[in-house]
């Protein structure tokens, strides 16, 4: 009876594990992202970044083949996130976890990491505190505070004394509001009103009316990238705020490249701060864009999550190199503390302490390039920006 069970168990586990890991030396990397549903485009960018990196740097490290396993997590859902991560670790035997678009999903995974002996490289989730929840987390994206921070000063220097902040009412929105207020008031300005809009807002005219009534001369806005940004920018123009000369600042989520064809001339001249522009002028970026566009299929769809994934893969490759294929999460993470390299976005470094990426933040302006296509044109660089959200903790 017991023997029978064992045989059954062995047969089943052999079936489940597949034939690969038994003899070939393949290192598996599990990537969790929104590959379907409302955020499918961002997930697609994850995939494009990963594939671009592997196309440019080979599919093996030190003779170890890399295999990527994608798992779909269409919307923020921590329970499912945890289930997927656990399945990737336990069943698929991945040595590295990557991806993760939403903060709560990352929060659900981090408690597993030390037991799983698996590092998690976050390609996007942008709340500062994630890296504090486990020493095995490394982040190659950005935090909202990091990208927002320079805008306070820029706004004040451009003559805005009174500003209104308008953000989507959820974690990153609140982070952005706080970061801007802090920087703006430190520079000497005054935030006259702070508006938090429900996530599902589709008509922004009443908000714009409120902006107008507030008497502010500058508007700071944060909306997650996606369909509503279009309505927001259009409402800004159509209600005459643009004409009235009110200055509009936002982190780059608002003008992600994949939305620009739709935003079009409505967004022209809009100034945003961000860590990456697809139009960044560097040889590294040219190579990256070419490879990533090939992977994603259309130049219009390429956007910032791809570079997070691309650099995330760089970190994972370095980790594999350091551990030589052995599963040792601590060693892997230690190997990338302080790692610096030239990313498509510019020079970057993994802070040894926080394991968050330090990078340039650019002020960009939506403009037409030589082909008449709208791009985020970099006009000013703020080098070596750490995450101010973490600095304060």
């Amino acid at each position: 009876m017991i023997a029978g069970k064992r045989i059954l168990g062995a047969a089943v586990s052999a079936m489940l594990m597949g034939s690969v890991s038994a003899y070939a030396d393949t290192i598996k990397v599990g990537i969790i992202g929104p590959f379907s549903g409302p955020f499918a485009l961002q997930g697609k960018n994850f995939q494009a970044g990963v594939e671009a990196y592997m196309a440019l740097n080979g599919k093996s490290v030190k003779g170890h083949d890399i295999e990527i396993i994608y798992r779909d997590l269409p919307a923020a859902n921590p329970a499912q996130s945890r289930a997927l991560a656990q399945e990737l670790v336990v069943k698929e035997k991945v040595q590295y976890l990557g991806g993760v678009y939403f903060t709560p999903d990352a929060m659900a995974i981090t408690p597993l990491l030390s037991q799983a002996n698996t590092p998690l490289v976050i390609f996007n989730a942008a709340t500062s505190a994630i890296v504090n929840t486990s020493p095995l987390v490394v982040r190659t994206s950005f935090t909202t505070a990091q990208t927002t921070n320079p805008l306070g000063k820029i706004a004040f220097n451009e003559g805005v004394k009174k500003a209104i902040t308008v953000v989507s009412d959820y974690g990153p929105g609140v982070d952005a509001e706080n970061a801007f207020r802090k920087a703006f008031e430190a520079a000497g300005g005054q935030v006259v009103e702070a508006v938090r809009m429900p996530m599902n807002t589709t008509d922004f005219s009443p908000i714009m009316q409120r902006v107008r009534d507030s008497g502010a001369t500058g508007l700071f806005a944060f909306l997650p990238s996606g369909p509503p940004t279009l309505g927001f920018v259009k409402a800004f123009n159509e209600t005459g705020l643009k004409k009235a000369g009110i200055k509009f600042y936002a982190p780059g989520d608002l003008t992600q490249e994949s939305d620009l064809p739709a935003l079009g001339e409505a967004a022209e001249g809009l100034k945003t701060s961000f860590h990456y522009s697809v139009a960044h002028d560097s040889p590294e970026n040219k190579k990256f864009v070419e490879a990533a566009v090939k992977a994603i299929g259309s130049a219009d769809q390429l956007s910032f999550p791809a570079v997070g994934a691309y650099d995330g893969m760089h970190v994972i490759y370095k980790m594999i190199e350091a551990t030589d294929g052995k599963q040792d999460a601590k060693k892997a993470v230690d190997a990338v503390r302080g790692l610096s390299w030239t990313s498509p976005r510019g020079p970057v470094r993994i802070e040894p302490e926080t394991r968050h990426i330090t990078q340039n933040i650019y002020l960009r302006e939506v403009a037409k390039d030589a082909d008449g296509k709208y791009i985020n044109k970099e006009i000013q660089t703020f080098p070596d920006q750490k995450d101010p959200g973490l600095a304060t903790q």
Partner: protein
Amino acid sequence: MQTILSIAIDALAFGMVLFIICIGLSLTMGLMRVVNLAHGAFAMIAGYIASYAARDLGLGYAASIFLAIIGTIVISIPLERFLYRRIYGSPELTQVLMTIGLTFCVIGITNYFMGPTLKIIPLPEALSQPLDVGFRTIAAHRLFVIACGAAVAGGLWYLIERTTFGIKLRATVDNAAMSDALGVRTQVVYAISFAIAIGLAALGGVVGAEFLPIEPYYALRYMVTFLVVVSVGGAGSIPGALIACLVLGFVDTTGRYLMPDFGNFFFYAAVILIVCLFPRGFLGRAQ
């Protein structure tokens, strides 16, 4: 005062977009007793067709709208014949299951063929300009949408209240068995009504694209809003739907202006209040 006027005109525009899209759903739910959760999917399909027509075929705005409406109706015909006819008269939850399944399929297929990015339908020059109306500037497009909504309301009113078809339709809704006994081909009436409902969804999807941008997830994203609006108005009633859209549009808009932090509270509290006060919707037909 200016602010009130200003809010009112925004509320009107937003309400009209909801109205154009939802009135079709209201007709299918109230007149044909089909809870068609895939209604938004048809609006989305129309948006894609219009975007393709305008951007890739270079057609004008009006031609794109026309093509989108026709195209969506053409797509809906086989669906009506092979899927919807199976669920006429089924329990509501079975209808929900089927139409959600259909919505998933439409989303998946759209994502596959059209990609996940936003699609825009370029507006003609005349509509894309901000217009100064004295106390504020307003996008000409918003006035166009209001006009469309009014035209739809008026056109439908005329169709349903004044034409023989409308009289037959109302008779069928009032008492289908008796209409049949008087020689009204109720199946044909239903098929035409379904096509009209889909056509209106298509029109709403296209002219409302400035408010509800076209992307694959559109079909699910606004499903709840549509369902709520229709129920509040009372399924099957044109004036009911109009009142619901304007009232909810107004509550939503002013709520977002006055207390943006609690915008959703306002909206859903209003919904609960209205539903408790008018359990059949503002002007609903008795079940």
